[in-house]
């Protein structure tokens, strides 16, 4: 009973939190909610299947840029819908061409995808529309952004919980364990991977679309910042990418740590990030949550 009541109660608390913080505090809340959403959405596909996607910012940036292009032409809900459709179309194109093959091709494709999209948009804006850089004038307050992001994050975690119990989640876990076994037990590999990847990509795109009014001025080089992909992966890995709450658990402390580091050590910040990432891969490859579970089990057994 408590397990069922706890998440809604926590969500309600999180929803009223912005009423009692400063503007800076609200900015931190939005950032933390954004990274919880990004890391959870990333883990929705990559955590179970072990297909490492390095393309988070390709979708995030597409969402932000879609809002920048459409915000004056369409009502806000329609803009969000268009952004989600653009993200889904991109994920379908990438997934259809790479997910039928070995995992490493998918990784390579996702590795360059953000740079490709960035160059294509830049080329299109410079040569066709002649406007590089756009402004977003939307009547959305910072609190409004926070609530939307909170809702998206909660929806992502709820969706992950539901998928984990469904046939799709079962199929994803088998694929992650052994693709050959999965194929022999009658799982449609390509369709299963594609479904999870598109779902995850739509959430990433929506997250970019929702935060975009915070940027005010949007340019391809701003919204396609590779650090976003990097942070998302390390957060999900640290918490435990194949656990429901792992990505959220990794995202909050790391986001705060990165905020503090980038403010105090702006020059050495990327070096520290790289070291931290390598440290996570070597020391807690499965993430903190699974490691803690193992420790508890050993205690209980002893």
């Amino acid at each position, binding site marked *: 009973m408590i397990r069922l009541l706890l998440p809604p109660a926590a969500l309600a608390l999180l929803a009223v939190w912005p009423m009692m913080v400063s503007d800076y505090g609200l900015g931190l809340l939005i950032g933390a909610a954004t990274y919880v959403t990004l890391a959870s959405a990333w883990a929705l596909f990559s955590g179970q299947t072990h297909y490492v996607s390095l393309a988070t910012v390709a979708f995030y940036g597409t969402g932000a840029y879609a809002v920048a292009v459409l915000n004056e032409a369409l009502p806000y809900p329609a803009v969000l819908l268009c952004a989600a459709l653009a993200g889904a179309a991109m994920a379908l194109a990438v997934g259809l061409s790479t997910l039928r*093959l070995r995992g490493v091709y998918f990784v390579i494709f996702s590795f*360059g995808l953000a740079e490709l999209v960035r160059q294509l948009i830049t*080329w299109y804006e410079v040569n066709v529309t002649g406007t590089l850089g756009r402004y977003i004038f939307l009547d959305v307050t910072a609190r409004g952004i926070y609530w939307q992001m909170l809702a998206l994050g909660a929806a992502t975690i709820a969706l992950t919980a539901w998928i984990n119990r469904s046939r799709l989640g079962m199929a994803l876990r088998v694929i992650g364990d052994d693709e050959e076994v999965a194929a022999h037990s009658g799982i449609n590999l390509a369709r299963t991977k594609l479904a999870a990847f598109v779902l995850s990509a739509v959430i990433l795109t929506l997250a970019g679309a929702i935060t975009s009014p915070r940027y005010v001025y949007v340019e391809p080089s701003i919204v396609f910042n590779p650090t976003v992909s990097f942070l998302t992966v390390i957060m999900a890995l640290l918490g435990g990418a194949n656990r429901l709450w792992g990505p959220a658990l990794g995202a909050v402390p790391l986001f705060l740590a990165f905020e503090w580091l980038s403010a105090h050590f702006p020059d050495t*910040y990327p070096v520290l*990030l790289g070291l931290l*990432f390598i440290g996570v891969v070597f020391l807690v490859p499965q993430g903190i949550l699974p490691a803690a579970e193992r420790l508890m089990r050993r205690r209980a057994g002893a």
Partner: protein
Amino acid sequence: MLTTTLILGLVLGGTYALLALGLTLQYGIARIMNLAYGEFALAAAFLAVALFQGIGLSPLLSLPGIAAAGYGAGWLLYQVMMRPLVARSGGGGRLETDSILATFGLLFLLQGGLLLAFGADFTSISHLERGVDVFGVPVAANRLIAFAICVLAGGALVAALRFTRWGLAMRAVALAPGSAPLVGIDVNRVARQGFALGAALAATAGASISMYQTFSATGGVVFTMKALVIVIMGGVGNVPGALAAGFALGLIETFVATAIDPGLTLAATFALFLGVLLWRPQGLFGART
């Protein structure tokens, strides 16, 4: 017009081929998917520029030293960082994921180091830029030298892999790492040599690129991406394949840049990659598995 595109494309392709050779060794022999590969080449390029501007040493003269330093750095990196991952994976499929993640972290570490040491500005030295006439097409001498370096290094590597005992061991590990110990090959040593040699080639490519191309500390991803596409196109671990695919990519890119738009070269790379994935995922010269 066509001759110009052809010759400039071949010259550019030479650099790409050299860049891809190292990656195909690292991935084919050491089984490390190195996403920080472009940063390796960039570090060598910055080193060559610093030596040129600091003490006036021509990149041509510093190149052997930089290549040797690259070998040493690659050797050390394999020993310190990759070897534990290899040991942890126990020969399973986990190494691929682990090496991707670890080198992704390394990418940011090296990029941060380069930004710290050399700043975010674009750098170029335009060393030896005198034009040389090739079949009526003026080509900068530095590009021709880079091309010659590629042909020499690539040819030497192909010959060494095919005709020496050392090359035989390399090919054995690339083909069957599980069976190689049965015939007395120290797989760990061979993998380490393959990885270090790959790093040396990355450094050589970086130093020759520094002579004619403008580059910045954040541009490593594009180098890695192009090298990866060439490696896949040529067939993983296939040195002659990587050479041929490198030239092909150079030609296609020059053609797209002159006939359509220079801003679309990366798109051309990706289109080529997609074509290869859909048509022959094992590579143009790879064997069907």
